[in-house]
């Protein structure tokens, strides 16, 4: 039994080492940032362009992250291909993410069409619940504990924002404040992990290898 547990732990450790570079956190922070900044831009750019402008921004961030992973993280941490059980878990995660994105897209269109008819709390509460369920499942499938915390922060953002709007008359439903704060927390967490990798794991160059061997 203990043998079984230690093999499981070994696999989990091998997987977690690949996730600790902080770059996924930074990407998530950039996604969340849209909800904070888009409402501010909507007055000048309109609803569509205030969100659409983030597509090239995300593409740029994704490209930078790919380059950082290849040129900065890989020489420090190395690389791994996971076994069939982990690959199956990752496949489930990908299917889940795609399903959530599709449902969100459809609900978003329905909400946009009937936005005026929706009671005030319907949108933030349903968005918060959806995010919480999605992130909880993702955290479970990826065994990535930070996702539970990030999910909670993102889920609370529209609800707290709506509360600020109703009670303190904060503009743009409070989204710039709540999503901005959430994005900042995730970004700091990601940067902290990234800097930790840079400090703790020096790159392995050809010279280092031949010198140590």
């Amino acid at each position, binding site marked *: 039994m203990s043998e079984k547990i230690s*093999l499981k732990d070994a696999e989990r450790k091998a997987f977690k080492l690949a996730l600790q570079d902080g770059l996924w956190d930074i990407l998530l922070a950039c996604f969340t940032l849209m909800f904070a900044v888009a409402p501010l831009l909507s007055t000048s750019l309109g609803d569509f362009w205030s969100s659409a402008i983030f597509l090239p921004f995300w593409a740029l961030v994704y490209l930078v992250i790919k380059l950082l992973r290849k040129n900065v993280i890989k020489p420090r941490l190395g690389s791994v291909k996971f076994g069939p059980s982990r690959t199956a878990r990752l496949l489930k995660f990908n299917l889940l993410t795609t399903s959530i994105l599709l449902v969100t897209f459809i609900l978003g269109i329905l909400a946009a069409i009937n936005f005026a008819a929706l009671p005030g709390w319907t949108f933030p509460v349903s968005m918060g619940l959806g995010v919480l369920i999605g992130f909880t499942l993702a955290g479970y499938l990826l065994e990535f504990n930070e996702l539970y915390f990030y999910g909670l922060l993102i889920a609370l953002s529209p609800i707290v924002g709506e509360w600020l709007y109703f009670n303190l008359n904060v503009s743009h439903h409070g989204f710039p404040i709540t999503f901005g704060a959430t994005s900042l927390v995730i970004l700091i967490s990601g940067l902290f992990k990234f800097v930790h990798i840079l400090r703790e794991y020096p790159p392995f160059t050809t010279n280092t290898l031949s010198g*140590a061997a």
Partner: protein
Amino acid sequence: MSDSPEQPVDLKPLIAIDQVIHAQARLIVLTYLYVVESVDYVYLMHLTRLTWGNLSTHLGKLEEAGYIEIEKEFQGKKPHSTIRLTAQGRQAFREYKQSMQQVLDDLPD
């Protein structure tokens, strides 16, 4: 001399234990290789916390026994080694697990 000598413990499974795997560092290496498909040198070094030279020595012994294969290639101008367990290595690791379990189960309290 006792009239009813105790039944001697059967130590045959202990003798059958694979000494290539039984060394602590090689056991750690094989444990990680058993749970992933393949891994490169640097990643394996971080996982096992072995030094470069130490890991190289143990990988050499495991490769010699036919338990692992090391694929060497160049990524750009840098050498890159990918390590994976062979079918023989996977089978040997399973047999080692069974042997160890049997030995420990058979030991008197």
